[in-house]
Structures are given as structure tokens and as C-alpha cells.
């Protein structure tokens, strides 16, 4: 390792801290949009605790809302990445289930306050 390597590590750590602090600034979302193959199929209110079932490419996908957070509980895919991801609650976050072609997206709050 030489001097430039140490500089590089410092710069990377700085960028990491910057990006982390940016993601802390995000607000909590109050609605979630569920897409199947880019079509909006369900709009979920995060203020109501409930479970929802949607049809994915590999069968049904079970979505749960609990205390303003949303997660995928059950789905049929090789690695179960989206159910392992757990809860999300910040706007801009999303759960993507590629094998099921399902995307759950938490949109930015500004847009939704205009609608409601």
C-alpha cells in the first residue's frame, strides 16, 4: 500500500458517509405502489395494517403492512430475495421481485399530498 491508496480509502469512506447521511434525510412514505410488469396494479395505504395478495409471474405474492412499514411475506422465487429484504418505510425505497415481475415502490411524499 502506498500513500495514494490511503487517500483513495479516505475518499471512498467520505463518499460512503455522505451517501448514508443523504439517505437518513428521506421522509417516511404513506402510500405504496405495486407494479406488475410496469403496470400499476395496487395502491396501498401504509396507515392501515393489512395483508394483500397479488398475482405475480410465479404465482401469488403476499404483501404485509405493519406499523407504516411494508414487506413481502411470501412469494415463489429461486432466492426469495424480496421476502428476505424485510420491511421498508422510506420514500424512494423499493422492493423488487424480478422473478415475479413485481415492484413495490414508495413514491415521494410531495406528489401524494397534492393528490390527497
Amino acid at each position, binding site marked *: *500500500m*502506498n500513500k*495514494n*491508496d490511503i487517500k*483513495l*480509502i479516505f475518499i*471512498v*469512506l467520505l*463518499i*460512503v458517509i455522505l*451517501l*448514508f447521511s*443523504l*439517505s437518513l434525510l*428521506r421522509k417516511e412514505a404513506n402510500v405504496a405502489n405495486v407494479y406488475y410488469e410496469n403496470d400499476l396494479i395496487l395502491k396501498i395505504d401504509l396507515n392501515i395494517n393489512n395483508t394483500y395478495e397479488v398475482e405475480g409471474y410465479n404465482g401469488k405474492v403476499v404483501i404485509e403492512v405493519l406499523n407504516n412499514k411494508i414487506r413481502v411475506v411470501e412469494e415463489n422465487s429461486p*432466492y426469495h*430475495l424480496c421476502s*428476505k*429484504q424485510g420491511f421498508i418505510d422510506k420514500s*424512494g*425505497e*423499493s422492493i*423488487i421481485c*424480478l422473478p415475479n415481475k413485481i415492484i413495490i*415502490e414508495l413514491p415521494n411524499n410531495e406528489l401524494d399530498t397534492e393528490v390527497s
Partner: protein
Amino acid sequence: MKKFTRLSMLLALSVALNIIEASLPLFNDYIPGLKLGLANIVTLFIIYKFDLKDAFYVGILRVFLVGILRTGLFSTTFFFSLSGVLLSIICMYLSKNVFKLSIIGVSIVGSIAHSTGQVITSIILLQMTSMVYYLPWLLLFSIPTGILVGIICKQLVKFYDEVLLFE
């Protein structure tokens, strides 16, 4: 001819490393997609002991072979890997020759470029801007994995030079 044989063996090695790596999940429950980047050992080695053109050949062929064997040709994963490999080769070459980093630094740059390339591709291909928030995790882990790959490659280069002396 000798160079050609060596490059083909390195290509086979990188494909094997890629497949071994896929069976070693590393905190995959928390950060999907995180891996050691063992195949990068080969790319890094080629940049040091051969030249840029060879690194591109082996890198691109590796992505195609892994695509055929494991992930599926022209699938989303295929384009993720392709963009990751291309960006990491370019960045590693620049950091070696322009910024004069040591082999460990070059390896970290390769690791960072690989994940950044994949995040950029996912934003373009899947329209997922939220992937940006995933980037700091990948960057953070690319430091230890980059150092590990760099150390392994350093030993490999040393060993290769010693063997060549006796040829």
C-alpha cells in the same frame, strides 16, 4: 502461442472462481448481490502481467461464458456483469497507470467500479433510482473485499515472476 494458452487458462480460472463465488453467499440475506469478487483476481492479474486488450478479451468472454453456464445469456444479470466488468477494467487500468496506485489500491478501485457500473445499469435498465441508496453499502464493503483480492493478486504476481525465472 504461449500467451494464448495462458490467457485461456486464466479465462477458465475466472469462470471457475465466479461459479465458486456464487455458492458462497456473504451476508446475502441483508445485502443481496454482495460478493467477494474473486474473479477480479484474474482481471487484475492480466492488467499487471499482460495488457489492457487481453483484460478486455478475457473479461468479456468470462461474462459470456458465465451467462451461458449460470445466469442466462442476455438476461438482466448478464448486462449487470458486462457493465461491471467493462467499467472496472477501464478504472483499474487508469488507476494503475495514471494515478499510480499500488496493486491493493487498484483492486479496491476495480471493486468500486464493478458495483458502481452495476448500479448505473440497474438505474438505466430497470428505472430503479432507489438503487442509489444501496450504493453506500456496496462501496463500504468494496474496501475490505478489494484489499483481500489485492493481497491475493500481489502474491500471485510474485509467484508468477519467480516461476518465470526458472523457465
